């Protein structure tokens, strides 16, 4: 963690610690994975991606593993339990037969996933037969009902946490579509009834139950035999269920590793519209650069966390002191002192929080009017009744008239001129793409804008401009390399994904790093298509004539001129350097008697850096001579 010594100057809007705190407080998910461990799950094989056959059991486990690996990064506060049923051994709080709750040390049955938990689960097959064992739990003639037991155990585990703050789920992995198929007569009806009753009880407690069926090659999982009643499927959903569940399994495996953020209000603002009339708006952070998860400094010897202690020392007396209340700036050869209060008073230039100043056409908002990510604004009637209505009216007017609002956003520590751009709601088949509201964009001040483009403005000749033909060729090129459905959401950050992958590999002591695809590289194949190549060649010919290859080196030529000069200097230095007997000078300790210019002869002649104080130069020469 980097310490910011000047807390006074920090913009308090996006306090990362605060964010983490609030996230923790928000609702979490509690999940129990119920995995059928009957012998059938091991005997049926399905062809997997790499053409090797995989048992249903293994498919289920790898699916859970992938999901856990994502979860530990995305939502590490969520809690999980993995529970097998139809097992030989039993391990559960109720001591019910045929149910085994898998766990590792230092962890409750239902708890946050840990690296060790994931690692042990991935090694499960090595010890499954010995320690857990597979066995049919429902056999005719006995009253045992392993499915019932499993649901009971799961429900008991999920008693943790209140239904209001936690989202509770049971996920069942099985390939047995008719669990009571081999039971006859009244016993079957009885078992079905009690099992369904148990499910209903769980649902009444706010637990949702989901099924992830595993179909056999020759026969599809028949939901209507038993599970349709269990999970409450009817009509059209019934037909859609199996294929949809297949997709869900895929989704669980290939989720993007990203930290999830719950929707939360960054700030509640008073938006002063006119003549003392203010409405209430809430701001939300929609787009913020994702930072790598929090970093803790550790002592590399003990791996124990360390804390940072800050102390203030008076530079003049060396005395230890308290955090000084005053700051100073040197101005006109004197130290002008400021108290912390004075500094915060200077920064407080506005009493209102968001103050409307007026409206401008959207064309006044230039592409370079940006400094940081925007903030989303949505109205609220919670405290000020009537806010939403004014906000919507202004929102509609601004869209209709193609205008944005200019406002001043001032908090006690930071203030900024902002543009409020109305955004209309955009909906596609997948739901809301852009919510309706306004985006608050930070406008730069004249102090923040630079004019680099004027830097090289020639004073004599006018700057060349492209002619009609060149523009036409450029247009043809642009048409060829078109990204039709580009969306800003489409690329994963390759650096971040790599980071997570490495972290996972190191935490789980995996041997090889998972391959991360960099989606941001250009489509080389597409660029080599003849149509594209032709357009590129025509553009080149139009702009560069036949001199493209030469011009490619133009930059280097210029550089070489500078380097020629440098070379000449070095040559001179070599000659001059030869006039000294460096060895003798060094041995007699007389190097320090030479001037800096003289010392530099040696350094330039030997291609060494010539920067630094005289002592540094002498030291560098001696090191180079090996003395």
């Amino acid at each position: 963690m980097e310490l910011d010594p000047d807390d006074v100057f920090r913009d308090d809007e996006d306090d990362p610690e605060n964010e983490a705190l609030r996230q923790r407080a928000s609702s979490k998910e509690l999940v129990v994975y119920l995995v059928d461990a009957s012998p059938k799950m091991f005997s049926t094989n399905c062809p997997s991606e790499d053409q090797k056959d995989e048992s249903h059991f293994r498919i289920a486990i790898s699916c859970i593993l992938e999901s856990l690996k994502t979860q530990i990064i995305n939502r590490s506060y969520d809690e999980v339990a993995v529970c097998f049923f139809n097992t030989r051994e039993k391990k559960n709080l109720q001591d019910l037969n045929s149910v085994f709750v898998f766990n590792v040390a230092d962890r409750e049955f239902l708890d946050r996933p840990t690296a060790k938990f994931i690692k042990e689960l991935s090694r499960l097959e090595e010890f499954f037969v010995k320690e857990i064992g597979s066995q049919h739990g429902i056999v005719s003639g006995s009253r045992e009902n392993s499915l019932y037991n499993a649901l009971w155990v799961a429900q008991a585990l999920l008693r943790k946490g209140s239904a209001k703050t936690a989202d509770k789920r049971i996920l069942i992995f099985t390939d047995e579509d008719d669990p009571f198929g081999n039971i006859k007569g009244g016993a079957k009806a009885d078992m079905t009834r009690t099992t369904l009753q148990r499910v209903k009880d769980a649902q009444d407690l706010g637990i949702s139950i989901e099924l992830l069926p595993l179909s056999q090659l020759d026969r599809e999982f028949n939901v209507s035999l038993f599970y349709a009643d269990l999970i409450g499927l009817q009509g059209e959903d019934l037909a859609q269920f199996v294929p949809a569940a297949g997709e869900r399994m895929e989704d669980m495996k290939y989720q993007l590793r990203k930290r999830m953020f719950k929707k939360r209000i960054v700030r509640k603002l008073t938006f002063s519209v006119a003549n003392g009339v203010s409405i209430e708006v809430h701001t939300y952070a929609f787009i913020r650069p994702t930072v790598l998860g929090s970093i803790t400094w550790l002592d590399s010897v003990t791996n124990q966390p360390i804390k940072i202690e800050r102390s203030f020392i008076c530079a003049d007396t060396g005395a230890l002191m308290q955090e000084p209340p005053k700051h100073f700036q040197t101005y006109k050869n004197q130290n002008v002192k400021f108290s912390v209060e004075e500094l915060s008073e200077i920064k407080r230039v506005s009493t209102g929080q968001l103050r409307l100043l007026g409206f401008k056409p959207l064309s006044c908002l230039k592409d370079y009017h940006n400094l940081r990510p925007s903030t989303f604004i949505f109205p609220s009637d919670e405290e000020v009744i009537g806010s939403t209505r004014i906000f919507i009216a202004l929102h509609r007017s601004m869209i209709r008239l193609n205008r944005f609002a200019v406002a001043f956003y001032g908090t006690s520590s930071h203030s900024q001129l902002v543009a409020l751009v109305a955004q209309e709601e955009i909906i596609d088949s997948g739901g809301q793409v852009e919510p309706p509201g306004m985006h608050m964009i930070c406008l730069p001040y004249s102090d923040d804008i630079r004019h680099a483009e004027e830097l090289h403005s020639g004073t004599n000749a006018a700057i060349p401009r492209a002619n009609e033909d060149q523009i036409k060729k450029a247009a043809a090129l642009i048409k060829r390399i078109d990204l039709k459905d580009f969306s800003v959401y489409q690329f994963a950050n390759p650096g971040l994904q790599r980071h997570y992958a490495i972290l996972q590999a190191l935490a789980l002591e995996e041997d090889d790093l998972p391959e991360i695809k960099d989606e941001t590289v250009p489509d080389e194949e597409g660029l080599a298509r003849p149509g594209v190549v032709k357009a590129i060649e025509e553009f080149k010919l139009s702009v560069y004539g036949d001199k493209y290859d030469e011009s490619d080196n133009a930059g280097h030529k210029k550089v070489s001129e500078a380097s020629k000069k440098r070379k000449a200097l070095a040559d001179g230095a070599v000659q001059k350097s030869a006039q000294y007997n460096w060895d003798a000078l060094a041995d007699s300790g007389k190097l320090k008697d030479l001037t800096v210019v003289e010392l530099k002869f040696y350094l330039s002649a030997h291609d060494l850096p010539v920067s630094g104080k005289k002592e540094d130069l002498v030291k560098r020469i001696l090191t180079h001579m090996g003395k």
Partner: protein
Amino acid sequence: MEVGGYEHVVVLQNIKVVDGDLVETLKKIPRGTLPGDFLDAIVVGMDMLIKKYSSTNKGKKRLCLITNGLSPIKDPYEGSKEDQVNAIAQQMTSHGMKLESVVVRESVVLDENVSVMEENDRILNLFPKRTCAKMVFVESSTSLLGALKTRSISPVTIFRGDLEISPKLKIKVWVYKKTSEEKFPTLKKYSDKAPSTDKFASHEVKVDFEYKSVEDANKVVPPEQRIKGYQYGPQVVPISADEWDAVKFKPEKSVKVLGFTDSSNIMRHHYMKDVNIFIADPGDQNAILAVSALARAMKEMHKVAILRCVWRQGQGNVVVGALTPNVSDNDHVPDSFYFNVLPFAEDVREFQFPSFSNLPASLLPDEEQQEAADNFVKMLDLAPSDKEEMLQPDFTPNPVLERFYNYLELKSKHPDAAVPPLDKTLKRITEPDPELLAKKKSAIDSLLRHFEVKQNPKLKKSMKRMREKPSGSDEEDNYRRITSKNKVDLIENGVKVEKIGDLTPVQDFELMMSRRDNPEWINRAITEMKNKIHDLIEDSIEGDNYPKALDLLVALRKGCILEQEPKQFNDFLHQLCKFCLEHDLRSFCDFLASKGITLISKTEAVDSDVTEEEARNYLVKREAKPE
């Protein structure tokens, strides 16, 4: 010192390093009544630069002309005015001088001056065509402040190399920052430990960081023994920097075009950071053409380019962003591109919001209200067609920085000066322009007539958000002290008023004053009341808050007499009147005088040092004194 031959041109100060004296000299700038010839002024200024630096410092010499351009310029002895401009421009070019003209026109020019103005504008406009010159028009003192560049930053490229459209087409470009936030200066911490006799004391404070084990506070960990730990679920995984470097994402330095896409695919609020500018390598004529052709074609076709950038070798991440065309209309400035960083999939948080159209009708505006809003948005126009755009970012200074530097100057002379209120010129940035509000009063009134806002009465008072405190953290400290001391008290006695609210401020104040559990409450109540009054006056538009402020002032006066705190009230009244006079709020003083508000006299409170007569005359006297 008048310069020979050039009438009405005075050299106030020859070129020298800026110091305090110069600031003083500038304050006493002579104001003449005679029209001046700006061409003469340019010649004199140019001459000064040439005499001092002859042809050295090419490109660093800058002339800044500030004029209203309304005085006629003389015809030259020979040749035309154009010839004269040409001659001057040539001189400037050969000496590597830049000219910046700021033309200030605060009010509309009257008939007889129009022809002079047009002629002058034409003459001034010749400079940018002939030499390295820039001309801007400003219409307010605020924009003038923004147009003057006080701190110039020598631009540094962040990338020089190829803009790769395909492996076969690479354009040489240089990338600079276009915007970069100018931060509040970091002040040094002040130490008062050095004896006052020590003239050479630096008064600086060194901040020392020590790393200690969390478990054993006596164990200091040397900085090089630290290692970064990364959160993985509940665990922390220690990973050394070397380990990371070996495996982390290491893209090659490059800037590649992924393709072009419709500009409508990129939303304005997707822009993430400060903006870069891409300029063709100034030494490569063909690159300038290529950039020009692409920029112009993109503009015509409404396309943007999507780029993948790795600015430096060894950078641990890639940046994906949008390149938008910036077509130049100045012959001396090349076409260029702006580059804005776009978010990755991980950076976007998908929050859902209700559609406006799905909201209940009670929250939606009706037709009449919509019309009033439309009219309001149209009327409150900051960029009317007949005037310069107001609050243009390029001409709007950062009010906080301006205020700081003004205060710095003030403090260098009067170390105990308080922070002065925000300058009127700067208020045009933080608050709506009263002139505009007055002009568009009907549109504003109509908006306010059509909409009603009110505080939600259901909300408990304690829940209500506190208004921002108007100054420093003093009160905050008081507040904390009180609350911590009296926590038990408060719980025992039920809810007590701790804050002056907006609804019943007078009652709140009285309740607070009558609290006996801590003497601090009185001070706090008084301070809060003062702030409230201050805010009301400051926020008031055409005196609409005056009666409310008066009520509070009367209550405050009564309270101060009761609690024998006359000085608090008297000082505040002094301060308030001063503030009003400085801020064009004279009307409030007059209002107070008309309502018979006086200082607290000796007869009313023994501690007061004001006689009854003084008290009665205080405001009256003010009124009589012409300002």
